[in-house]
C-alpha cells in the first residue's frame, strides 16, 4: 500500500540560548493510507514535536517529510498553509476552538479558508459530522457554552470538514473521562472506515492505543518499538 506520510532521517534540535537539546534522533517512519496508528511514550519523549513536524507546523533540523508524495522541505509558507488546509486535520490536546464563534462556525472555518465561501454541500457535511459526534442539538452554541467533551468533539468535526487524508490528534482524550474517551475512539474508527482517513493519534491513554492497528512507542526521541497489531 502507498504511504501518505513518510519521515526520512528526521532530527530535531532545539536551541535555547547557547544550549542545544536534541529531541528527535534520526526518525524514519512511514504511514500507510487509511491506517490507524497510535504514538505513545512518556512525557517529554518528543511525541508532540514529532506530530508537529508531521503536520508541517514545525520543521525538522535535519531529514525530510513527504506528505502525500510531496516533499515539504522546499515549500514556502503559503504552500504549506494550503497543504495543511486541504490534506491534514488537527485535533490538539487543548481543543483550540475559536471562542468568539459558534460550534458550527468553527467547523466551517477550514472550508472557508479553502473555498472562501460555504456551499450547500459543505453545510450538509458539517451537519453530518455534528450528527456523528452527537452534537446536533448544540451545534449553534457558542464554544464557551459547551462542555469539554463537546468542545473536543467539535474540534474533531472541524478537523474533518475538508475531508482531509490525514488526521493528526495530540492527546485528543487527555482531558476527558473514560466514557467520553471511548466515544471519541469509536468515532475515529467510524471515520477511518467511512472516509478512509489516515489516523495518527498521540496518546498517554493505553485504552486509546488499543483501538489502533499499529502502536509506535517513542523513548527519549527514538523509536523504541513499532508494533503492527493486525
Amino acid at each position, binding site marked *: 500500500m502507498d504511504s501518505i506520510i513518510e519521515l526520512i532521517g528526521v532530527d530535531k534540535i532545539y536551541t535555547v540560548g547557547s544550549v542545544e537539546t536534541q529531541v528527535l534522533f534520526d526518525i524514519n517512519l512511514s504511514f500507510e493510507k487509511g491506517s490507524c496508528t497510535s504514538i505513545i511514550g512518556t512525557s517529554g519523549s518528543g511525541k*508532540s514535536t514529532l506530530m*508537529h513536524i508531521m*503536520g508541517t*507546523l*514545525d520543521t525538522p533540523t535535519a531529514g525530510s517529510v513527504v506528505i502525500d508524495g510531496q516533499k515539504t522541505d522546499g515549500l514556502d*509558507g*503559503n504552500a504549506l*498553509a*494550503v*497543504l*495543511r*488546509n*486541504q490534506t491534514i486535520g*488537527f485535533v*490538539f*490536546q*487543548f481543543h*483550540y*476552538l*475559536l*471562542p*468568539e*464563534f459558534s460550534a458550527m462556525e468553527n467547523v466551517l*472555518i*477550514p472550508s*472557508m*479558508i*479553502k473555498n*472562501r*465561501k460555504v456551499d450547500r454541500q459543505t453545510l450538509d457535511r458539517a451537519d453530518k459530522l455534528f450528527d456523528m459526534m452527537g452534537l446536533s442539538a448544540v451545534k449553534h452554541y457558542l464554544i464557551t457554552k459547551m462542555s469539554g467533551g463537546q468542545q473536543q468533539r467539535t474540534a474533531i468535526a*472541524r478537523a474533518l470538514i475538508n475531508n482531509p487524508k490525514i488526521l493528526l490528534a495530540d492527546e485528543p482524550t487527555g482531558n476527558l473521562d473514560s466514557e467520553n474517551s471511548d466515544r471519541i475512539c469509536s468515532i475515529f474508527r467510524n471515520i477511518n472506515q467511512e472516509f478512509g482517513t489516515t489516523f495518527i493519534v498521540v496518546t498517554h491513554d493505553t485504552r486509546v492505543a488499543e483501538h489502533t492497528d499499529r502502536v509506535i512507542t517513542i523513548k527519549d526521541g527514538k523509536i523504541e518499538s513499532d508494533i503492527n497489531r493486525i
Partner: protein
Amino acid sequence: MLSLKIALRFLTSNKLQTAFIILGISVAISVQIFVGLLIESLQISLVDSTMGNAPHITITSSRDDITIRRWEQLTAQLDRYNVVKAISASANGNAYAKKGSTIKPVLIRGFDFDSADRIYHISEGLYNGRINKSRNEILMGKDLAQDLELKPGDSVTISAPDGSNTTLKVTGFFDLGISSINKTWVVANRDVAQDMFGYGSRVTSIDITTNNLFYADVIANLFKIMLNDNDIRIENWKQLNQSLLRGLEGQRISSAMIQVVIIISVAIAIASILAITVLQKSRQIGILKAMGIKNRDVALIFLYQGFLLGIVGAIVGVGLALGLLQSFISFTTSDSGVPVVDVYIDYFLIIRSWIIAVLSATIAGLVPARNSLKLNPVDVIREG
C-alpha cells in the same frame, strides 16, 4: 471575506474594549474637526470683516496729476471679464469739512453710488437718514458725523486744497465697521468731486471686487498684462494687508499642526491597542494558521480591525464634533442672538478629516498585522 468576518467577530466579542477604542478615536477626531472648523470660521470672519467692504484690486494713476484718462474704456473692458464681480470708478481727494468752528480732515469719495455700493455696501451700513440722491447731497461716516455733531439734513462746508469752498447737504450716516472709513469718508457724487478737485471728467481710482479674494494677486497680474498701460498702477489687497495674510497663514499652520498631532496620536493609540489584541488573540491566530489560513489573510484581519474602528470612530467623531460646535454656538451666542464667532461648517474639511482618520486607523493596523505574521502556531499550541 473570512478575514473581515473574523475581524468583525473579534471586535464584537470584546464590546467594552472596542467601545473604548471607538470612544478614544471619536473624541480625538471630534477635537480635530472642532478645532479645524473653529479656526477656519475665525479666519473667514476675520477676512470678512477686513475685506467684506473693500475692493480686492485697486487701479490708480501713476501720472503726476493722479487722474486716470481712459477710465471709461478701462472699466468697460474690465467689466467684461468673468472674474470681475463689481467695478467702481471714483474721483477722490483730501479736503476739510467745516461745521461751525470744528474742522476735520476728510477723504472725499466721488462715487457713482450704485456701482460703488456693490463694493462697499454703504446702503447696508446706513444707520441714520437716507441715501444721497441729488447732486449736492452727501453721506458721512459715523465717527466723522459725531465729531462734527451733525444730524441728517444739516449742511456742511467742504474746503478743497485749492481753497475753494462747496456747501453740501448731509442726508445720512453709515457705519462700515472700519474706523478709518467711519472717521474720514465723505461719500459724494462723482461729478461734484470732479469739480471740487478740478479733475475734469477724469477719475482717480477704479475699485474692483473679484469672485475669488485669495486669487486677487493673480488676477491683478493678469490685468497688468491685458491692459498693458504705463499710466496706471494696479494693486491688490494682499500687497496692502501683509500682516493680515501672515496672521492667517500662522493660524492655518497652527491648525494644521494641531490636526497632524491629533492624527498621529490616534494612529499610535490604535496601533498599540491592536498590537495588544494580537497578543490577546494569539491562540486564535495560531489555530487559524494550523488550519492553513494564509499569512496575508491573517494580516488582513488586523487591517480590517483598524479600518472598521477608524470608520466607526470617525463617524461618531464627526457627530461629536457637530454636537460640540452646536453647544459652542449656543454658549457663546449673546442675549441679542449674535454669535461671537460665525461658525461656518466646511463639509470638505469634515470629509477630509474623516478620510484621514479612516486612513490613519487602517495604516495603524499595519503594525499589528506585521506582528501577526511573526506568530508561529507551534508556540501557541505548545503553551496549552
